[in-house]
């Protein structure tokens, strides 16, 4: 028997549901001996129907339904009944997990990428690990305050580290929010090839935003931008094959962790700006 999805392991002897790496991620936060309990917990969450929130639930289900076909449409796994239904349950459970946020487009790619490497329950708890450690709540919350925060930080880092590129954007009226948004909302799952997503998962869990900023800066640095005007934006968003090459390069990049932490902490969500005391 073989895994139908990712081929991260050459010779899986047992547990065909999960690639070995997805279990490694799980171990960062959870006791793997309790996997059976975690399965049960997930099953419970899956089935929750909240009587007085029917309208909210219908809305979530409808949006999820709309996006199922549109999540990795070129990956057969997601076009088959089994994969589609697993993703549907996973996304519903994710919506239930933090009802104040619910299901937001972008989550489907992140959840899908995780599901590609593991069984539903493992994908869910790995999602939770990432969600909590990187405070993803902020990027999906009403008014998307975290999105603004991370875009501003990337912009600042680009300005200080890649001045020429920054000036090119400025000159061509290319704004960071015009190309960064899908990257953050999908936690790069829209751009990193799904088979390589395992390469970013661990560093994202361990090094959090520092790694993501490094990866984005590395991509910007390695993007070949030859156009000007409106085509520049197209070039910037179309070179998805470059992301793969940039994963190993990201760690060579030098970013001041203390500075990043300070920025992350000093963001005022209401004013959507940094208040450094």
């Amino acid at each position: 028997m073989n895994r139908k999805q990712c081929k991260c392991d050459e010779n899986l002897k047992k547990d065909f549901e999960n690639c070995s790496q997805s279990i490694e991620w799980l171990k960062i936060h959870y006791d793997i001996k309790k996997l059976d309990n975690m399965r049960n917990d997930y099953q419970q969450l899956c089935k929750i129907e909240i009587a007085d929130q029917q309208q909210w639930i219908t809305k979530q289900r409808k949006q999820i339904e709309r996006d199922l076909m549109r999540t990795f449409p070129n990956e057969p796994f997601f076009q088959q009944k089994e994969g589609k239904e697993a993703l549907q349950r996973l996304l519903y459970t994710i919506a239930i997990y933090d009802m104040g946020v619910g299901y937001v487009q972008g989550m489907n790619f992140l959840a899908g990428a995780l599901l590609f490497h593991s069984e539903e329950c493992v994908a869910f708890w790995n999602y939770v690990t990432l969600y909590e450690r990187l405070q993803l709540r902020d990027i999906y919350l009403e008014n998307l305050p975290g999105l603004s925060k991370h875009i501003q930080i990337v912009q600042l880092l680009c300005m200080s580290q890649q001045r020429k590129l920054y000036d090119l954007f400025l000159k061509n009226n290319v704004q960071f929010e015009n190309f960064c948004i899908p990257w953050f909302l999908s936690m790069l799952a829209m751009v990193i090839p799904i088979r390589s997503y395992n390469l970013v998962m661990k560093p994202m869990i361990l090094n959090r935003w520092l790694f993501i900023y490094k990866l984005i800066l590395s991509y910007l640095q390695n993007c070949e931008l030859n156009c000007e005007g409106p085509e520049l934006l197209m070039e910037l968003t179309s070179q998805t094959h470059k992301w793969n090459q940039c994963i190993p390069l990201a760690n060579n990049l030098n970013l001041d962790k203390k500075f990043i932490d300070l920025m992350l902490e000093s963001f005022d969500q209401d004013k959507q700006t940094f208040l450094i005391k």
Partner: protein
Amino acid sequence: MSLGYYDWLVKVIVLGDSGVGKTNILTQFCDSKFSQNYTATIGVDFKIKILNVQDKKIKLQIWDTAGQERFRNITQTYYKGAYGIIFVYSLIDRNSFNNVEGWIKSILESTTDEVCSILVGNKLDSQDRRVQTAEGEKLAQKYNMPFIETSALENKNIQDIFDRLGQNLKIRLENEGQKVSNNIHTQSGQFKLNQEVNQTEQPTSSCNSC
């Protein structure tokens, strides 16, 4: 005249609820295909296409937006500098029609610039119609914009959306006398209108009625 030549560069945004077919309309128009395998738009995506309107070439930078309600605020930041707006609803989704007026109002509230708009009812191919043609016409009349029913799946009336929009854009651009050759890139993407000329010569939304 070189291949990449154009007379004007114009930003156009496509607005409407999630799943009404915004991306499919653009794919049909720009790449001449309908893709069953298309990806949900997260945040924003771009397409570029040169539109011929009589003797002029208008280069369209089209902003394809995400329809989910949560993204409304960021979508509004894209309005700035838009010359053309395509409002889309689905003929088989009553809600998307009910919401399209909200999208129109959000434009009226947030921008003082005049824009050329068009209302599009998509999915004409479906048998399960929930919005009548007369309703779309009435709404378009209320906001003084052209109206068209389309099918991205069958490539029906898709080109017409852009032809009609293009005609209005051309009239509008000629009125402004603001020509931008493709040698000048400094203003790309974001056009600031000549407000003074506008206010004195075109006090009302002349473009929308043309």
